[in-house]
């Protein structure tokens, strides 16, 4: 800790009465972070379900498909509630704009939640098995897109700690999605069938932990908001919960008792949620303090001038 501090001295900068330069991201709690969580859960559950479909594991596939469908629709509801004019939600699907991650994301969400609902509906009712299977396999493609587009959504802004963290956030969200989907399927499926879900949870927890570690260390001054204040507390809580949950998931398959699985699932879910809330708050903090806008931009200007002077 103290070494980092020594490496990043308190930056000198000027501002207009300490006021923020950019606007606060409007996204609310709990809507936005819960949406990020649900999108990840839906996407990775679909991936798990598609894997089951291809390897003939029906009893693990069913709960994964249901989780994908429920999380997809619940996520959409949170997203609509977040709008200033919810009744105009469909304006999102008025155009397809590749330059807008929210436009691209709305289409991904529409495809993912629609296909996941068809796949789950068919699995539950037994109707139209061929259609259900095709939809389920298609969510194997839309699912990972659903889980990771949200990293682009938050980073494609002027919010300094999000924009600079776009690489790490993509993997943080991917890992978090795998962990949360593994967690739900692990307890929803019969204990003996849950092997792939457990392994998915372990891999996800590892990826999430490494990505958040990098995020909190490698962005220079822009890592600070991920370590400080309430965002820092949430990120640290996420770390502990995810590592604990991952370790429990790894051993849960060795016993016949369900308790370790249940504890693991609870810890992983809480860890994933904490990470999403932490990322939102870190972005907010980096938008609110003009330091995070001015100092990196000043460094950029200085570097350019050095280059020019150096020929």
């Amino acid at each position, binding site marked *: 800790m103290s070494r980092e501090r020594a490496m990043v001295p308190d930056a000198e900068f000027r501002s207009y009465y300490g006021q923020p330069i*950019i606007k606060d*991201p*409007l996204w609310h709690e709990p809507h936005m972070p819960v949406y990020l969580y649900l999108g990840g859960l839906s996407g990775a559950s679909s991936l798990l379900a598609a894997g089951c479909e291809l390897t003939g594991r029906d009893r693990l596939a069913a709960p994964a498909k249901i989780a994908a469908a429920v999380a997809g629709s619940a996520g959409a509801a949170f997203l609509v509630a977040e709008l200033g004019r919810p009744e105009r939600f469909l304006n999102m699907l008025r155009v397809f704009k590749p330059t807008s991650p929210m436009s691209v994301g709305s289409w991904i969400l529409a495809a993912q939640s629609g296909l996941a609902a068809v796949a789950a509906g068919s699995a539950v009712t037994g109707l139209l098995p061929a259609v259900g299977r095709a939809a389920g396999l298609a969510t194997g493609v839309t699912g*990972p897109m659903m889980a*990771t587009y949200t990293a682009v959504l938050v980073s494609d802004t002027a919010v300094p700690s999000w924009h600079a963290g*776009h690489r790490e956030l993509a993997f943080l*969200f991917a890992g978090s999605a795998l962990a949360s989907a593994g967690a739900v399927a692990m307890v929803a499926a019969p204990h*003996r069938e849950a092997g*792939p*879900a457990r392994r998915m949870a372990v891999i996800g927890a590892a990826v999430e932990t490494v990505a958040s570690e990098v995020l909190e260390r490698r962005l220079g001054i822009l890592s600070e908001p991920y370590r400080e204040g309430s965002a820092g507390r949430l990120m640290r809580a996420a770390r502990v919960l995810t590592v604990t949950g991952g370790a429990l998931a790894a051993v849960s398959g060795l016993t016949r008792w369900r308790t370790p699985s249940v504890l693991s699932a609870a810890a992983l879910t809480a860890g994933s949620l904490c990470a999403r809330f932490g990322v939102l708050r870190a972005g907010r903090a980096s938008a609110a303090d003009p330091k995070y806008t001015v100092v990196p931009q000043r460094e950029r200007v200085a570097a350019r001038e050095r280059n020019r002077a150096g020929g």
Partner: protein
Amino acid sequence: MSERVGFFTDTSVCIGCKACEVACKEWNDVPDDGFVFRATSYDNTGGLGASTWRHVAFIEDFTERGDRWLMSSDVCKHCTHAACLDVCPTGALFRTEFDTIVVQADICNGCGYCVPACPYGVIDRREDDGRAWKCTLCYDRLRDGLEPACAKACPTDSIQFGPLEELRERAAERLATLHEAGVAEARLYGERPDDGVGGDGAFFLLLDEPEVYGLPPDPVVTTRDLPSMWLWAGAAAVSMAAACFGAFARGPRR
């Protein structure tokens, strides 16, 4: 497409009268933005927002730099590469025939994405109305061949309106005059077409560093890095599929 128009705001002659703020409100029917005594300076609107489309900044600089008052009327920059426009998912934000950026209030669904996308913190959402608002560069007046209300009202010609090319020439001349007169700290802001937003349609002559006026020193349109962001998200998505494959590959089938 008509000629690109814009503003050149020469802050060296701004007297802080706020006629621009008032004219903008009157013409565009912009609602009340609160009566706040900020206790920092004569600034009482604080910054640009959904209901403040022109904002006069007051910098009371009584430090070792000398006793001086800096005043500057800020506005939407009508960026060449406008992040707000790029990220708007509904197409509510569009580029007009004058190369200005305008929100169509009947289409905006208040997603709020444009708000944190703007590198200058200009556009914002009105919470009672749920939609995003900002300066339109008086789109209605331009279509009738009139100049925007703020420029019309400015008593010192600090706010100059006109074809962008002409304004750039005028600004270069003004800068040279000031430099000759010994005002070494005078500088232009946002006039270069090769900056991070491709140049501003509304640019400034400042007497100190931009951040002192609450402006970002080196703004970049966020979508410049969008291809790289999608690449990383794509890599993460593929890794998820690989992780899933790994989860099934190991262990007994049942």
